[in-house]
């Protein structure tokens, strides 16, 4: 078994607003193994991006623990040691605003090298050329400003920046959701190649299940700040358990008849995700669930291991829990 590079345990992140407390992330536990891609999937308002930002330290957790290679890092980025910032990087969703349009590509790519004192100015310039070549951009792009680049090229620069310090864990926050499919394909393949070459671990945040089918090792589904189901990718798509997963799968527009066969039949999407300020009691999904019964609105379900490595958070699966299961939670 691989060692765990990232462990998140009972993570909570609440935001106090004038309308009330937003329970963005509520007792979320998961782990990322070395060299794998964990796909964290959810709709807007599910809290998936909050998880990403808390892991890199842009938010400080309300409670719970984040461990990187066993070391507790549950604090904001300003209070983390420099070496740690070198190891954990993030690629943001919107390539339009993730690069400062007032700086050249060279300045953007040199920043992480300067901060971590990697080489003198000539070395750095060589490294910038090397990084650009890695993401298949010509070297003279270093003199360009980000707004002279297309969306795909900008995202490649953002990826090059994230890789500049040779990180171990990269958080990908919807890196291709703003791009066309033909460019998405190029970027995804590039990311998979880097993962292989640099032994990277990815926490891949997305709303696109079809993409996760092709990219991730394991998939976790989030709904209203909770993880509903975690499973190895094959099992997740061949045998989904949670009613929300089924609803999500059935809603995906596909292009091939073979894909239609993967979608759970006779399930249609209903209702909307409630506001995270007023989370329904019990299981948050009971307001939209077709298989709802009395207990769902009263008791919060527990995470169950339904088959090896396949965890479901639903009252429909009252598998007898052994104490070891409870202890281990999702992080198996």
């Amino acid at each position, binding site marked *: 078994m691989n060692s765990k590079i990232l462990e998140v345990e009972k993570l909570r992140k609440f935001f106090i607003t004038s309308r009330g407390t937003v329970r963005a992330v509520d007792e979320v536990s998961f782990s990322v193994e070395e060299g794998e891609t964990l796909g964290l999937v959810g709709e807007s308002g599910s809290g998936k991006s909050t998880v990403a*930002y808390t892991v*890199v*330290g*842009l938010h400080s957790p309300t409670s719970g623990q984040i461990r990187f290679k066993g070391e507790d890092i549950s604090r904001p*980025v*300003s209070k983390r040691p*420099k070496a740690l*910032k*070198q190891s*954990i*990087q*993030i690629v*943001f*969703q*919107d390539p339009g*605003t*993730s*690069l*400062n*349009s*007032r*700086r050249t590509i060279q*300045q953007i790519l040199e*920043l*992480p090298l300067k*901060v*971590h004192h990697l080489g003198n100015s000539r070395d750095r310039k060589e490294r910038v050329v090397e990084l650009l070549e890695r993401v298949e951009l010509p*070297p*003279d792009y*270093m*003199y360009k400003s980000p707004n002279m680049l297309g969306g795909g090229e900008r995202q490649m620069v*953002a990826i090059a*920046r994230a890789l500049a*310090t040779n990180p171990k864990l990269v958080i990908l926050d919807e890196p291709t959701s703003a791009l066309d499919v033909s460019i998405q394909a190029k970027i995804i393949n590039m990311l998979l190649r880097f993962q292989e070459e640099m032994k990277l671990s990815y926490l891949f945040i997305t709303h696109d299940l079809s993409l996760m089918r092709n990219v991730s090792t394991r998939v976790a589904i989030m709904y209203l700040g909770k993880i509903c189901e975690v499973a190895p990718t094959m099992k997740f798509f061949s045998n989904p358990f949670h009613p929300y997963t089924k609803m999500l799968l059935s809603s995906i527009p596909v292009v091939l008849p073979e894909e239609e066969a993967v979608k759970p039949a006779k399930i249609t999407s209903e209702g909307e995700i409630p506001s995270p300020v007023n989370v329904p009691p019990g299981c948050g999904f009971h307001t939209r669930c077709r298989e709802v019964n009395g207990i769902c609105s009263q008791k919060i379900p527990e995470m169950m291991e339904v088959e090896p490595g396949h965890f479901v958070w639903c009252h429909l699966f009252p598998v007898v829990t052994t104490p070891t299961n409870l202890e281990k939670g999702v992080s198996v």
Partner: protein
Amino acid sequence: MNYSRNTLLKRRAEGFKKGWYKFSRNPVSVLGLFFVLTVSFLAIFAPYVSPYPTHASRFVNFAEAGQPPSLKHLFGTDVFGRDILSRVFFGFRYSLMMGVVVLSLVVIPGVVLGLVAGYYRGTWIDTVIMRTTDIFLAVPPLILALAICSVLTPSVFNAMMAVSLMWWPWYTRLVYGLSSSLRTEFFVQAAEVTGASRSHILFREILPNCVSSIFTKMSLDMGWVILIGSALSFVGLGAQPPIPDLGTMVADGAKYLPDQWWITIFPAFAIMITVLGFNLIGDGFRDLFALEEV
């Protein structure tokens, strides 16, 4: 590599040409630029272009006092017989100096305070800086300047100090708004995740994105500062005679209205042209930067 550097320079030149194209699309901005360039030229070369340079200082010739505009004195003469045209040219010097000195004193502290307060929004740093700013902004600017100038001995220097003291909060406010929204942009967060220093984030990431707004405001403010400087001189709290300040000249001439109208009208018109010029350029900048963002 050198070849690429050249292309970089070429691109800059191209960018400049494109900027001029956008700026010049609005003829009113070009008119403003023309006004400002003319005024600056006349101010810098006042000793050479004015017909009677000596009239700018202590000079009396009662024989030619109070003459209406003529070919000899295009703008007429004042009660001491001094050529008003020459004095207006020298007057531009004091007006522009007022604007340039005040803005250069004001912009740096104002912007830095705004950057810091915006970045630390919601903390005690924000509270201290912004509430201090609010106190200054709560007092009407002209009244505050008047109060300060009336305590000190009236002089050009003291007027500039007084105006500077009340002007910085506007820059703090402007940059505060920009900085507090820019700090949540992804490129700032990316720099934070990398571990960039605070000063890098403030001055290399956030500040360059505020420059266009600061520039626009400076050009609009030039006009305002000149106007306020002239107003202070007008009420006798700024430049003192015989310094040829446009405000002082208007004030002196006001006593002889409406008979000797030229003593007042021409300096007043000169103030108007200067202020209007800077305002029109400011609008031009605003269009230019707004288009650039698209």
